[in-house]
């Protein structure tokens, strides 16, 4: 929705590709492989003993697709239930979320569903949610059936894919699938009318968010981001 488009406009008015910037957040039970997915996507690495994430970690990755340069700003959150209260600070204002579970552990799938519900209720209404069944390399120990997750994803309008951070299977794909989905959201005909709705939507989001913990502190960040997004938009 609030994809930043700009910077590439030349003086003569012709555009040479666009630059999009997405804020993306990873959520899910601890030890399902959130940090590993990010590490695989951003650095192409995999650490067997990836240490646990406390609070959250921030990483970025820039990908070039045809005529578009996409910059991901990725917030990788702590999985432990107790850190839950911090989560809104990270998914607030995010354009996309990857909710991760571990296919060898049914409980983590349940937790993923809770996250999806929370995002649908609390996050930006236009957020793109992808469900990732991670640790596909351990498919022989599978406890969550592919069909079960696929059905759930379909019912809730989520992107769904099984991944393996260890073997790199589908890792890039899930991020790129999100870009596609976001692109569709963005490219709406009728620029002027659309901008207005975008603006009002933003305000609405802000209202919901200020109730959450840390709202006071983080609030300016989202404002700031949106300011910059709006001001960067060449057609505004």
């Amino acid at each position, binding site marked *: 929705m609030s994809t930043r488009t700009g910077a590439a406009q030349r003086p003569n008015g012709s555009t040479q590709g666009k630059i999009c910037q997405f804020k993306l957040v990873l959520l899910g039970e601890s030890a399902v492989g959130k940090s590993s997915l990010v590490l695989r996507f951003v650095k192409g690495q995999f650490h*067997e*003993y990836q*240490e*646990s994430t406390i609070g959250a970690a921030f990483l*970025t990755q820039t990908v070039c697709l045809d005529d578009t340069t996409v910059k991901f700003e990725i917030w990788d959150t702590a999985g432990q239930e*107790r850190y839950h209260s911090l989560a809104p600070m990270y998914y607030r204002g995010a354009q996309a979320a990857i909710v991760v579970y571990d296919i*060898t552990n049914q409980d983590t799938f349940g937790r993923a569903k809770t996250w999806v519900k929370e995002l649908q209720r609390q996050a930006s209404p236009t957020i793109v949610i992808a469900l990732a069944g991670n640790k596909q*390399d351990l498919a022989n120990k599978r406890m969550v059936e592919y069909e079960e997750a696929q059905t759930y994803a379909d019912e809730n309008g989520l992107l769904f894919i099984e991944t393996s951070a*260890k073997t790199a299977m589908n890792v890039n794909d899930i991020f790129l699938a999100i870009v596609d989905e976001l692109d569709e959201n963005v490219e709406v005909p009728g620029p002027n009318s659309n901008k207005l709705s975008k603006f009002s939507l933003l305000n609405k989001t802000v209202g919901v968010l200020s109730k959450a913990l840390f709202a006071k502190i983080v609030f300016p960040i989202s404002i700031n981001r949106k300011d910059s997004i709006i001001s960067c938009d060449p057609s505004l």
Partner: protein
Amino acid sequence: MTIGLLNHPEMHFGAITFFAKQHKEDMCGSNGLPLTPNSIIIYGRAQMLKAIKSPYLCQYLDIIRGKHERTIVVSQYCGTPLSNIVENQDQSIDEIKHIVYQILQGLNELHTRNIVHRNLSTENILCQDNNVKLFNYGLYHLTDNGKLVSFPIIQLLYAAPEIYLDGIQHNHTNPKVDIWAVGMILAELVLHKRFWSTLKLGHRIRKVLSLLQSNTSVFERIAREHNCYEDYMKVPEDIKEIIEICLNINVDQRPTCGELLQKGVFNQQKTDKISEKKSLCEPFEIFTIHEFYHWWQLAGGDIFQELKKQGLIRSSPPILSLPQLVLIEGGLLGQDRNPATLFDPRIVEMPLASLYQRFENIPFTAFYPLIQIKSDIISRLEPPPYDATGLPLIIKERDPEYQFHRVILLRRLLHGYPFTRELIVREAEKDIPPLLRGEIWAALLHVKGDYKSHYMKIDKYSITPTDRQIEVDIPRCHQYNELLSSTDGHQKLKRILKAWVCKNSNYVYWQGLDSLTAPFLYLNFNDEAKAFACLSAFIPKYLHKFFLKDNSAVIEEYLAKFSQLIAFHDPVLANHLYEINFYPQLFAIPWFLTLFSHVFPLYKILHLWDKVLLGNSSYSLHIGLSVLTQLRDRLLNAGFNECILLFSDLPEVDIEKSVYLSTDTFKTTPTSITAREHENCEFQERDKYDISGVTLEDLKRERYPRISANDIVSLVRSNPEKMCMVDIRNMTQYNRCSVIGSINIPFSSVSFSDNNIENIGQHSQLLKETNNKVVVVIGDEETDMELFPTFLLKCNVKKVCVLHGGFNILLSVTPTILVSHSHNI
């Protein structure tokens, strides 16, 4: 003279080496993680052996891992193997009894710890002046009953028949197998004969098994086979009886070590009080063999090199180890077994000459340092034994002489703990010798008393809802470290965490507690209870309430204080971070929640915590500041994204620099600057002149810290030149009564429209160049207490703070620090 003390007959050690069994390629455990390498499991299992101290056992000193699962075991090695003197006809019966008695004592020590030797032979019993020590007794234990190595652990001649009958792979954890071996050894000794020494392997086994069919006495049969029936007849009855009951084919009828030691045959030995043979015994022990080994290493000793020199470690060209055929599935065929994977019984004694040489000039008195010098005259005459001041810590830690003096001194002080605690603190302020760090930390944390039974009583096994979290966190916690990644390490960490959760029902397990526990476990690997006691003492002092179920108020307060501390010391950086909305919430939670133990590798944490333990709970704020200071230039030139990226992947931080910087700011910052509502009042007493009652909202809004009246009073009295007090009340009030040395800048006279220090007027020069003075803003309820200090901060004035409670709080201070100017006008 000096060498005399070091050159003690017991201060000798040697090493053996073997390969642990290698896992097949790409093997994963049930959690998807790779299997722990066997050499790491061995490494963990062997640690407890290092803690066994007995005059009848060679002490284990070190386990070293090499390439390809190589394991090196270093242990005390003194004397000659018993096998050398078996055939010595001069051995009297009394001497033999004396030897066997000591063997049994050693075995008893092991059996009470549930360790089965399983490897006993005359080769690994060492004699030195009638003193006997068992050697290499832990091999079966540390290889998990032989499961972790690909060679059998067996002494053909001395192995009990049930070992052969059940097969080598069978786990024999019944200590009775060792009793059979004792019987054989005793029989050899009294007959002065090495049994079946000329036979080939297969024949020997057949001979041992043939004993099973023996209808008469096993001992008699062996004697007849060796044509020693006459000698056999000469053996005293009580000895014969001992041999007979030891060589009982029926396992259950064999006696235990304890039963054997009670036998009348050893009455003489019992009264001889052999147990007093320890010449260096606690608590008067000047140094232990562990320390001796440590110095040897510092003085250039290298186990690896010595083994290489002796040909025990040989590298062969990799091409020779290539298989002839590799299947697509990964199977290997046609690979010769590397003979090195078999057991190599050779022992390499380590040369000590270089250590003796290095320590040649150490005077004898250095072994008995004065620990407390009350007379100034003596203390001035007494030069420091070895001056290393000014050397970097890393050099000091590797300097053999310096470590010698430090260890000798601190070992002495530790013997006197808890009475010597103050002296330990004073020494710890200089530096902490790595070898004694675990004990010194415990002393700094006031760990004392019966912490062991306390720990034992805690339930560490019942299933709790936290288990899943603990279980997924442990295999990710400092796994680069051999101890913490070993199976024993995982189990210990789990027990400690569960014990902590069970013991602290008001708190909960937050991710990060695992990292916080890791340094304590690492330092006290053989004393789980002490690790737990340290953790239990550490948290209330440094992380009070951080592990509450709802800790957000505590953490937010801490983070707000962190922001204020940055503003206090580095307004330029603080203003920059403020402008780009870069808040500590986004990066510093793991810093403070785990006191950096989740952020840095262990070796850095150790040095950092050496200082933390000498400070209070505010110290980690200063560490945080020191990290920012090190990254200052990069942060100042970076926007939000670059900043946050910098901290997601924290670049190399020079820990010694951090320690230096944080100690410096810690010492120069008035304590109330970092005072917090949620501090543990047990460690921080407060009175009406201290800061209290500040709400979290106020705290988060105020970008500069408050200072307490107590701090003002003591600063005005002790260091008035370090103070710049700005009284912002109106001139009338100021003239009527004000703090000695304060200046008056009436609040209403300043325009805050832009951040220009000149707006202040005549005193602007003074505030432009404060020369690191603490700038205290003093107002009262009629003045706005926020605009002015915020203005100063925005103008990049350093060390700005506001007097908590305003001017009026100073009115009741006695003796007063106030003066009146009115009569001057």
